[in-house]
């Protein structure tokens, strides 16, 4: 990359980037805290992660204007690791996640993203929204009507405040108002301070305090792999959305590597793994941010606010955060997918539903994606394996014609073999493959078998209309003895 474009990416839009960065920082704080609580760690872990990731990605990311920080998708993957083994293992897993992502980036694996079908991506996003929502339910257990009222108030402010002004994020306004009410009226509800410590200090470099051996690796590796995949999936999806919003292009492999570097740094500085955030990136671009500076300002300003206002942050009631998270889940959900559910092909719809169901049952987004991808592969294979055979009998010449339509490969040859009556006593058989294509050994084998069977009864078989590729395959594999005339 040359110096001018780098300069443009950093300083091409200073005013817009600084303002948008500040707006994003304000919107990031409640989310970073809430995602920490979902993961089961102290709020500082999410805040440090958001600070480290946003700042590092500003320098090493491939998509200027995109915001990365602690996210719900990643937090949801960590729950069992934290519950079973504790924070130190999470930090180690975060570092390993980063290493895996760098490997993915170096191997340019981002192009394999297109093997994840769109219906799986939609299912992924919807499942994420559902999980973020259900993670809030625990905060309501054993609470009085005050909790419901405060959550209701938070949501009302979030959705109605934009009518007044859109300059300040309405989530922040909601949190300030609800916190003020609780503090002034001295309402006894649970707050952030009850969920864990919040220290007003900068993150410091430290190695995770864990035994470095194979056993540790075996514990963290599955988590790290899931985190790495989900992180890249969401980051590249977000990068595409920002590409589209700003009508510019981005370097997906650089972004993948950048996410890795950011996660490694986050892990060493006591933060959890994160990735790009659709919602925050949209807020950033809408607020006028488009350059690398916006992510840097967002991260730095977030840390500044925590250092200065940490003792106020601990007084934020959980009700306000739950309200913000409910809003996040509502806006994350792809509502148009519900509307289109009966309009898209049934196979796509079921892939989407299976992806969502798998995630909701297993609480693991990676499993959902895997299930969705495998199911779509099955659907694809079964769709591809539909072979139609038309047949016609010419009495004058005692000749049987077959016309094959469809792809011939291991999954589809049985259909072909079943539709050809190779015991029929005719003089001649012609098989027209113009509308067909041979893909593998099984296809060649099937044709050989048909020919051999007919030949046994002294029936002459000719194959017609082989495509060039198919003919080549036939020759290479040692194909038909004599009949492959055109």
């Amino acid at each position, binding site marked *: 990359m040359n110096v001018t474009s780098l300069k443009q990416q950093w300083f091409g839009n200073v005013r817009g980037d600084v303002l948008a960065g500040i707006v994003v920082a304000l919107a990031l704080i409640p989310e970073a805290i809430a995602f920490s609580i979902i993961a089961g760690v102290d709020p500082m872990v999410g805040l440090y992660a958001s600070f480290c990731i946003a700042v590092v990605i500003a320098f090493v990311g491939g998509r200027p204007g995109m915001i990365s920080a602690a996210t719900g998708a990643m937090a949801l993957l960590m729950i069992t690791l934290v519950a079973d083994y504790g924070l130190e293992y999470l930090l180690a897993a975060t570092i390993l996640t980063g290493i895996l992502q760098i490997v993915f980036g170096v191997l340019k694996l981002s192009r394999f993203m297109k093997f994840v079908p769109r219906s799986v*991506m939609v299912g992924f996003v919807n499942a994420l929204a559902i999980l973020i929502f259900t993670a809030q339910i625990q905060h309501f257990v054993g609470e009085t009507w005050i909790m419901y009222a405060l959550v209701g108030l938070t949501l009302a402010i979030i959705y109605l405040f934009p009518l007044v002004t859109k300059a300040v994020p309405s989530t922040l306004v909601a949190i300030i108002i609800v916190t003020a009410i609780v503090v002034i009226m001295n309402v006894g509800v649970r707050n952030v301070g009850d969920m864990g410590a919040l220290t007003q200090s900068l993150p410091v470099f430290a190695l995770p305090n864990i035994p470095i051996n194979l056993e540790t690796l075996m514990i963290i590796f599955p988590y790290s792999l899931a985190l790495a995949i989900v992180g890249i999936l969401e980051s590249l999806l977000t990068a*595409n959305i920002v590409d589209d*919003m700003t*009508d510019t292009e981005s370097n997906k492999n650089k972004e993948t590597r950048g996410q890795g570097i950011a996660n490694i740094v986050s892990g060493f500085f006591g933060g959890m793994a994160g990735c790009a955030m659709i919602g925050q990136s*949209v807020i950033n*671009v*809408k607020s006028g941010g488009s350059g690398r500076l916006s992510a840097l300002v967002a991260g730095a300003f977030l840390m500044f606010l925590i250092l200065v206002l940490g003792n106020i942050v601990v007084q934020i009631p959980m009700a306000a955060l739950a309200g913000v998270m409910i809003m996040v889940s509502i806006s994350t959900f792809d509502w148009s997918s519900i509307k289109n559910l009966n309009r898209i092909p049934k196979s796509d719809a079921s892939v989407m539903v299976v992806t969502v169901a798998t995630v909701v049952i297993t609480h693991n987004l990676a499993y959902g994606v895997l299930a969705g991808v495998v199911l779509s592969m099955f659907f694809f294979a079964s769709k591809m394996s539909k072979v139609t055979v038309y047949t016609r009998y010419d009495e004058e010449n005692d000749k049987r014609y077959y016309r094959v339509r469809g792809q011939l490969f291991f999954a589809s040859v049985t259909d072909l073999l079943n539709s050809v009556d190779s015991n029929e006593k005719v003089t001649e058989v012609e098989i027209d493959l113009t509308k067909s294509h041979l893909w593998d050994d099984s296809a060649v084998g099937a044709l050989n078998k048909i020919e051999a069977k007919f030949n046994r009864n002294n029936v002459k078989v000719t194959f017609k209309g082989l495509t060039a590729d198919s003919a080549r395959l036939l020759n290479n594999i040692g194909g038909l003895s004599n009949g492959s005339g055109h």
Partner: protein
Amino acid sequence: MFKHILIATDGSDNANRAIEKAVEMVEPYKEHVSMDLVYCIDGDTSKKDILKYGDAELADIKRRKMFANKLSYLEDQGIKTENVFLHGEPAKTILTQLDSKPYDCVVVGSRGMNEFQTLILGSVSHKLAKYVKIPLLIVK
């Protein structure tokens, strides 16, 4: 009368009606008219389309397809036409687009696709009526 018309469209039936009305308006001298079909892509549109189509390139192709019919309809009428995609908040980007070329009229459908959004954010046509400095035709 009006020769360089900007038509703001969201691909809805309402917007299509606006296009038809605009053509009726310039019927007597339509071979001298140019109409730009302007479509705005904001954050929500991006999110929805990328989830639906996978990447920005395909989303762009699909959007162009969405207007292909209308473009050829206008061309058949002998009207010079162009498909313009703007990125950002609709009313704001349309106002910027108006400064970039010597348009003399803006045509817009009165209602977009989402009534709830209209209720919360106010309609695009309303905002345009407030800020546009040249004649504006809102087609009901």
